């Protein structure tokens, strides 16, 4: 089974990570490392924000600086960390999972990656010309009159949009045309389903943001009047365009993450995934529904009041497919033989934390409640529970889970568990108090606040520092284990998806010979008696 490949014996092979390389595994690692660097940058900005907010009064940052750090914290975290890191996971895993030798368009794939570093450098360098300071939402007209850095920001986001679009084209084409012999749609790993649903949204929503950013850039550079109110320009139009992309974007940031969770649960429960088809279909349902809810960010904006109602209803309905996933994961654990390796810990953390974020999303979708909490720290808390507690937890789960596959070595479980607990506690400590602050009347995006909110902010700052510290065991673990961790073997988790059926790390073209699917990817478990099995879904492999 395990084929000897000359991986360890090439001393200069690290260079290929700094070059144009078309191997999807190299590109995947390029993505993961680059985006993690940007996570550190975004995290450092968050630390500055939290330090400023540790007590009332403006001490560390003045109003302008605060807005710049805030804007770039949000933009870096979303456009340079979560969206591309998930694309990076997809890059590394999809060809392996479907038994292909590479992506459909290797050069386009390399281009998708190589757009990211310049875009990231642009965004960070914009601090030298007066960084963007209008929030990651860049509401007009504020963003039209903002300094030069706002244009740089727009260019950077457009580049990252191209990166996403090219990546999505690659994912869809690869999954549709390059599956291994015998792999039907109902044999696809659920992570691949998640990426497919994500790619759909990227293709449909990202270009609209590009168009919108073009309009802002034209207003700033070419003297057009799209958002010049005196000439009839309409600020609400930008909000529609922005959220038409950015709401789907939040599902772009969660569906692959949920895919990861769907991979982890069956393997560490030693049971087939519960309700495979329902989970796959719910990903698609979320992606379709997700395109129809954008105006729930605009309930207070003075948009047409009657239109708010349908948007409220579609937003609420997304709870249904999401619930299907959560309940199916719980049922997967039921009667299993749970192993609490670090990926499983993060998957459990994902459910707990995302649940809080998701339910508060329902509060936000309810218009009357949103009229009170819109643009308050309640929203900030919601978004960090889903994005940090949800997406980032899942990314950590993925990094631990596939670490042996990517490096051929095993990480240290003890450090992994430490990382998990610090992260879990830190998340709750950081963001739970912020719900209260928001409800009590603290608006978001303020560098200063009334003294009555001090206690909640102190707790949050404490939690944030804990989160900062929590990355240290992770970094240490990854670096040390990569260099001299114990050899992991090809399939340490005894998983059934195709990526585990080749060597670790995989050889140049992934498989020595073209793989043929002979077993369903979640075919775990002791066979049950026919009576019980009659209710089981018919989709199980051969």
């Amino acid at each position, binding site marked *: 089974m395990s084929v000897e490949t000359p991986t360890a014996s090439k001393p200069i092979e690290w260079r290929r990570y700094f070059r144009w390389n078309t191997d999807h595994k190299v590109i995947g690692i390029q993505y993961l490392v680059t985006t993690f660097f940007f996570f550190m940058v975004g995290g450092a900005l968050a630390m500055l924000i939290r330090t400023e907010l540790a007590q009332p009064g403006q001490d560390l940052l003045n109003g302008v600086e605060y807005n710049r750090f805030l804007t770039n914290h949000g933009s870096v975290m979303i456009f340079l960390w979560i969206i591309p890191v998930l694309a990076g996971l997809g890059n590394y895993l999809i060809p392996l999972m479907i038994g292909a030798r590479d992506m459909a368009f290797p050069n386009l794939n390399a281009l998708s990656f190589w757009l990211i570093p310049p875009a990231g450098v642009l965004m960070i360098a914009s601090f030298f010309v007066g960084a963007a300071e209008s929030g990651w939402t860049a509401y007009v007209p504020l963003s039209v009159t903002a300094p030069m850095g706002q244009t740089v920001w727009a260019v950077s986001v457009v580049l990252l949009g191209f990166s996403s679009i090219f990546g999505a084209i690659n994912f869809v084409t690869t999954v549709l045309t390059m599956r291994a012999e015998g792999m039907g749609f109902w044999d696809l790993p659920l992570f691949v389903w998640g990426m497919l649903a994500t790619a759909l949204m990227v293709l449909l929503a990202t270009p609209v943001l590009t168009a919108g950013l073009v309009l802002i850039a034209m207003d700033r550079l070419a003297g057009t009047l799209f958002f010049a109110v005196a000439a*009839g320009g309409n600020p609400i139009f930008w909000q529609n365009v922005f959220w038409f992309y950015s709401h789907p974007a939040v599902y772009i940031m969660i569906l692959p993450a949920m895919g990861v969770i769907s991979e982890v649960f069956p393997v560490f429960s030693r049971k*087939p995934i519960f309700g495979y088809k329902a989970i796959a279909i719910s990903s698609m349902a979320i992606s379709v529904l997700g395109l129809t809810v954008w105006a729930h960010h605009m309930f207070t904006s003075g948009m047409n009041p009657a239109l708010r109602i349908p948007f409220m209803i579609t937003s*609420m309905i997304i709870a249904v497919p999401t619930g299907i996933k959560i309940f199916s994961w719980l049922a997967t654990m039921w009667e*299993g033989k749970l192993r609490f390796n670090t990926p499983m810990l993060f998957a459990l953390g994902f459910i707990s934390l995302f649940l809080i974020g998701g339910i508060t999303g329902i509060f936000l979708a*309810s218009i*009357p409640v949103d009229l009170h909490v819109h643009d308050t720290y309640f929203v900030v808390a919601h978004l960090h529970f889903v994005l940090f507690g949800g997406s980032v937890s899942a990314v950590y789960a993925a990094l631990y889970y596939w670490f042996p596959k990517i490096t051929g070595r095993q990480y240290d479980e003890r450090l992994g568990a430490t990382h998990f607990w610090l992260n879990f506690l830190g998340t709750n400590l950081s963001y739970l108090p912020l719900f209260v602050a928001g409800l009590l009347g603290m608006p978001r995006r303020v560098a200063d606040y009334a003294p009555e909110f001090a206690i909640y902010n102190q707790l949050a700052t404490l939690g944030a520092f804990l989160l900062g510290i929590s990355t240290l065991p992770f970094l240490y673990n990854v670096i040390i284990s990569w260099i001299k961790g114990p050899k992991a073997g090809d399939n340490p988790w005894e998983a059934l998806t195709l990526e585990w059926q080749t060597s670790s790390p995989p050889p140049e073209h992934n498989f020595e010979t073209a793989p043929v699917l002979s077993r369903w990817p979640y075919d775990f478990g002791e066979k049950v008696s026919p009576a019980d099995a009659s209710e089981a879904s018919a989709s199980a492999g051969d």
Partner: protein
Amino acid sequence: MRERTIFTLVVLSLVLVIIGYLVATQVDLSGLMPEQAATSSVLVDKLFNFLMGVAVVIFLLVEGALIYAVIRFRRRAGDETEGPAIHGNNTLEIVWTLVPAIIVIVISIYSYRVLTQIERPVDSPLVVRVIGQQFIWSFEYPESGVTSSSLHLPVDRPVQFQIEAKDVIHSFWVPEFRLKRDATPGQIDELTITPTQLGRYPIRCAELCGAGHAAMVGEVVVETHEQFDAWIAAGGRDAVEGGLADDDGDTSVAPDGRSVFVEFGCGACHLLSDGGGAGIVGPALDGISNIAASRVDGLGAEEYLYASITDPNSYVVEGFAEGVMPLIYTELMTPEQIDALVEYMLTQ
């Protein structure tokens, strides 16, 4: 065996529903919300309580199942077997699709009803124009022609706000009323509120509007009809005379310049240590008295400061843009207030 499971499930869901009901109706969640100062506050809080009830049930259900599974189904040492190969269960899956669907539909209907109640048109409201600009709120009462930088409302009378903005988007929000509406340049948006509690509440700008966004805080004073009428009759001035907490409306006291500086939010743009200003949109005013006289030839310090406030564009400090400092202070302040302000600056 099977019957016992069903029995347990029924009991569990009953317990959960009861807990949810208690949270939604009995538990006092007022600690999570500001004071209820308008009819809308009561309605929103009721809905919020209901949502909390639902949320607590779902939270307990999911976390409970999760913790139970983690304890009950953990692998014992040495056990190398796998779990049963169960792939799904149609009944279960239909249940957990339908039940959340029903819950969210109920939430939607309830929310819709609350919304229509909040936004129900009212007869002969008091109309107030709300104008947002960087970084100050101002209010106009078209019936009486009064303009003011603080908002006075008679208790128990519906008010219709007509909200607009002069430069960028702001958002008019009184947490105690539970309602907010964006002030968007180029359009007028309406918001109806009936205040029910006497008192003073902050007006917080909720939309990022620039460097002074955090400092864009105003004040709403809900008062009796008599107090309100008196305030209007005095041109909307006496109650704010001298700025801060001056309820008795004693007009004989000369306004205090520092209070004026604080009340009109100059600190959103200007750094002035004594007045608590930390803004950086405009020039720092620490030590302004020393340079004021040398700014413009032929203008003494006092004249220059007076001109800076009443006609900011007449002289634009180097390195700053024209037209940033609002032009409305002559409208909002009494001559005495401006004089007091100038006098105060001369001491800085």
